[in-house]
């Protein structure tokens, strides 16, 4: 039988995949993709917990996460377009202005 643990572990694994993406990718668009993966992973956990406890709160949070993701896309893509106009690339390394 599939229990809460299964979903949570799947969620954890997907989250880590997203994290690896965030850490590994230098392309901003890819970073955004990886972020979406992380958000989705969390949503799975929310839905699973909601189902496990028969409580709607989990789903509510998932809705708000989706709303946040939608806002993030609107603003983030606007920024991406501007950055691309300015630097001609989406590579994070190209934006390094500070010298540590």
């Amino acid at each position, binding site marked *: 039988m599939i229990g809460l643990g299964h979903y949570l572990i799947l969620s954890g694994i997907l989250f880590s995949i997203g994290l690896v993406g965030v*850490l590994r990718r*230098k392309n901003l668009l890819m970073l955004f993709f990886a972020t979406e993966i992380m958000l989705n992973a969390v949503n799975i956990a929310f839905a699973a917990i909601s189902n496990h406890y028969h409580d709607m709160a989990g789903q509510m949070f998932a809705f708000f996460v989706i709303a946040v993701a939608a806002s993030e896309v609107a603003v983030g893509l606007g920024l991406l377009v501007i950055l691309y106009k300015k630097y001609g690339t989406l590579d994070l390394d190209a934006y*390094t202005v500070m010298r*540590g």
Partner: protein
Amino acid sequence: MENLVYIALFAPLAGSLFAALFGMSKKNIITGIVTSTLIFISFVASAILFSHVMTVGPVHVRMMDWIMAGDMLIPFGFLVDQISVTMMTVVTLVSTVVHIYSNGYMDHDKSFNRFFSYLSAFVFSMMVLVMSDNFLGLFIGWEGVGVCSWLLIGFWYHKEDVSREVNPSISPSWAANEAFIMNRIADLGMLVGIFILYWNVGSLQYDVVFAALPNLSDGILVAAAVALFIGAMGKSAQFPLHTWLTDAMEGPTPVSALIHAATMVTAGVFLVIRANPLYSMEAVHWVSYFIAALGTFVAVFAASMALVNRDLKRIIAFSTLSQLGYMFAAAGLGAYWIALFHLAAHAFFKALLFLGAGNVMHAMDGELDIFKMGGLKKVMRWTYLYMGVASLALSGIGIAGIGFAGYFSKDAIIEVAFNEHTYVLWTILVLTAGLTAFYSFRQVFLTFHGNERYHALGIHPHEMYGYVLVALSPLAILAVVAGFYKDWFEHFVTKLLPEYHMSEHTHHIAWILGLLVIAFAVGGIVLAYIKYNRGLKRNEKLERSFVYRLLSNQYYIPIFYEKTISKPYAALSRFSWGTVDQKVVDATVDGIGKFIKTTGDTTRKIQTGNLSDYLRWMAGGALLLVAIAFVAFKLSQGAH
């Protein structure tokens, strides 16, 4: 009336702040005029309050709650009663004269405005001191006058340090520091006294504290009395904390007149008078007796040093010291109102004496050595008159109920000493009266009579500005007539202070005693006349004698202090600085700084400006946090 209290209190502050606005700019006569006017307003307010207190009674105002911490409630209140209103009037009157005088005296000083700012600030502090209705407010004023005194003694801070042989005070800034540090030592005692009172009474309001005194144990009363008197000793320059007062003569002469003769140094006496319920307690009678004995000792001690001194201002300073001794003697013997009366009378003629000395100094281009003066009465007629009057007052000349101010106040003190059967003290005080007369007139004759030795120095003395001389006249008049108000004053202040009556026996022989004192005083004057009227004849043998050198070196006390306290303390400080501070404290602090700097240098590389790298650090941190949270959760679960 409340408004008058505030006007009297805050007018000097307003003047000070006004002058401070121009503190760094060039001399501006307006600051002098404005501050003088404001002080005068304060004087007028004080005078009105005086009459109010006399006719109606004390005024007690509570401006605001000052400190409220837990059970501690100390309001910012002001009490205008017989004692404080006397002090207020004296302080503001002398201050007004000194302010006006300073307009002339500081005429050529480039820090003219700054001077007035300090001077008015001092008056404000003094007003807070005398007007406060609690010990803490008194302490604030106490510290305020201390700071102002420091500022004013060191007013010419730019003067270089010189050796003790050239100038016993070394330099104005040195003298300022000495005064301040000595006062700090004494203030510690004062603070302890305040703490003792608060600890045992739970309040610092005068009325509350004094009402609670009978309930306190003897030990506490003695401790409080001693501790408070230590504070008074510092401010009033009693032995062994006396050396600063003569060195304080490094300050401008108006300062010496105002602070180190008329007002601030009397704060100690004021404290004892103010705390008379405490010092009147049976339990502390030997403390009071000690105060009287110390006062008497200081009176003769200071007078002896004045005998041989050549510095015009220092002689007056020693005489101040001596007179403070008289006041303490009176206060210690329980004759508080006489102490207060002497305080007021002394303020007038001592301020006059100092300001006269200032005139001389001004005329002599800053020269203060009386051996280099002589014959000045021709050019400085008014000053001669003023100083003569003041010296007569100081010497206590007068007979059969007619005489100068000092005659009434000082004789009363001597009488008290006799009345209390403390004949040793009485003897010394009588003797001191003679000494006082001698050194006062030694100075007068050496300055104004005899051959004109100043010609050798190429100095052309000239009289002070007219308005300054006019401004001094109230002091001169008061120095002459203040004594006639003795009975009236007694009637006024004994509403608050305990009355003091001579015994029948003393009363009977009072005229004999008075005559004896006068005889000593006149004897002193005559001696001085014989010795110095014709001019200066230096006796080399006498000057080389041990006693003479002992006296002129102030009993070697400043040197003794320097050798036994200052030098070892400096050595200790140097050791602490070199070893403890630099090698331990500083090294630790520097080590922390270095550690942080090194950490910063090392970890700076983290901050590459590359977002990817940041993300990695963030992920590492997140991992760490999750791990810690998990472990902590597990541990807490295990604990349950």
